[in-house]
């Protein structure tokens, strides 16, 4: 395709690749599995809808959002109550204990002092194809009818379109989207058209919108591949708004913890080696 400026770009046809895939039998990707701890399983068995009760749910997707959640959101004591598991790649950094903040893991945590506060930290790559079952697992196993939900995610500025030239963008910056039922006003600008979210964040918001849950998503547009301190700190305004403002307290050790996590991520950065 030739663009307005005359460059020739290789574009894949947006049409579905010809008449092809009706009989497609490619390798089937494993469906993600949700696993609750024994304690929570026993608790939910007693409930009529068999779902984990929840008033505030924070879902963090990707390195920056997870680092932020780890340092600034989970300031009280939390216990692991479950996880969503799917295949990990050979080159995914993982420790045996699966507890390092850089591990490709996805655990669901619950606050000790207020068990209706749930945090889901997804630090693994969930493909677009898997995202439907992933989101469905979460929505069918946690009772979200009255919950306030916040999704934190990050996105590269590479695909961000705006009237401002990309060289003049002040990165990192936050953008938000909310579902119809979420009545509050997000703390930052709404994501401008024609920009769109894709992948797991988009799938989660779709679920929350069609099932009429109260949800808001904050997306950090960043430049680096691995988490750095400014991109994590870009989420800071989120601490002032529903539902996160009701579940945190200032963390005195924040700076040290953050530096530690970012350093661990940077180890994997081979760009200048």
């Amino acid at each position, binding site marked *: 395709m030739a663009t307005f400026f005359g460059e020739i770009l290789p574009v894949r046809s947006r049409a579905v690749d010809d008449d092809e*895939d009706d009989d497609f039998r490619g390798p089937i990707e494993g469906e993600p599995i949700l696993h609750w701890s024994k304690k929570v399983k026993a608790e939910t068995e007693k409930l009529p809808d068999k779902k984990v009760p929840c008033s505030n749910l924070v879902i963090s997707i990707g390195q920056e959002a997870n680092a932020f959640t780890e340092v600034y959101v989970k300031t009280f004591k939390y216990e692991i109550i479950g996880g969503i598991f799917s295949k990990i790649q050979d080159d995914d950094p993982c420790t045996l204990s699966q507890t390092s903040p850089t591990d490709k893991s996805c655990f669901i945590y619950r606050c000790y002092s207020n068990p209706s506060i749930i945090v889901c930290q997804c630090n693994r790559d969930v493909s677009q194809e898997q995202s439907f079952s992933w989101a469905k697992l979460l929505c069918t196993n946690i009772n979200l009818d009255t919950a306030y939900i916040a999704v934190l995610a990050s996105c590269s500025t590479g695909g961000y379109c705006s009237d401002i030239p990309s060289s003049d963008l002040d990165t990192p910056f936050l953008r938000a989207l909310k579902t119809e039922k979420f009545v509050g006003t997000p703390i930052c600008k709404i994501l401008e058209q024609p920009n769109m979210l894709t992948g797991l964040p988009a799938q989660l*918001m779709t679920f929350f919108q069609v099932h009429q849950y109260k949800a808001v998503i904050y997306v950090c547009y960043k430049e680096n591949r691995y988490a750095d301190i400014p991109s994590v700190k870009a989420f800071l305004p989120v601490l002032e708004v529903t539902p996160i403002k009701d579940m945190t307290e200032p963390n005195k050790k924040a700076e040290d913890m953050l530096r530690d996590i970012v350093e661990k991520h940077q180890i994997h950065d081979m760009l200048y080696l």
Partner: protein
Amino acid sequence: MYIAATKRKHDWQDFTLILPTVSVGNVGQLAADLIISTLWMERVGYIHHPSLLPVAGNNPFAHEDATSCKLATCCEVYESISAQVVVIQQRAPFIKGKRKEFADWLSKWVKDKHFYRVIILTSTFAQERLDYQMTGSPFRILQSPSMEEQSGEFFRTKMGWKELERRHSFPAPTPQQVAAEETGHQLLYMPGSGIAKTLYENCQEQPLLVFMMFVSEGDNAQDALAVADQLNAWLSLIEKKDKQSKDLESQNFAKGIVEWKVPMSWRLVFGSRFDQKLFQ
């Protein structure tokens, strides 16, 4: 599955369904965009199906100065009660290998809703045309038997729309085959038209029209205008604007035979603006 966004009951028996498929240049979807935005159609439901890739964004049809957020998902159903039209807008492609599952589900849904008529908007690769398709109108139609009965004559004489020429074999007949076969194998050859063919074959009992255009990938806004104009010439969805409405003639109104309102989401097709200093 279809999930209604409002509690209102819908009775679509007198309604026309406009159903664009994801196809070359997304012409059908772009034309649907024009219809939805010009008629100010209301979103009445979502199609939430595991075969579709997820996307989420702010209202594509919002006013330029709007600051509110109205989440749009990958496949939505719009309705205009005054024009008696329902449009299904799909904004994302299919997951590989799950296309047929969706097409079968959608055909069943369309049949269940008993629309007055169904119009599938699609497009097919311009480079696949045969010699005799090179000149003349780039539009082609396919009709189900009941549609043929309803308005087949009208399409041919008044609208000047041609049936899509069937092909003898794939990819093109040899001269011998053409000479030998007069009523031989009649293949529908519409590459790049997405699920249009499956839907057409599944919904033969419905009054159904497939409206397609030969196009190439690129900036397909003009193709979309052409499709929307053709459709409007038949359905008269939008009145021709008279000269009084000059105040509406801003940038956002594209001129075809009628004036279509270009939605917000068509901005920045070629990406961000660039730094002017680059060229000094």
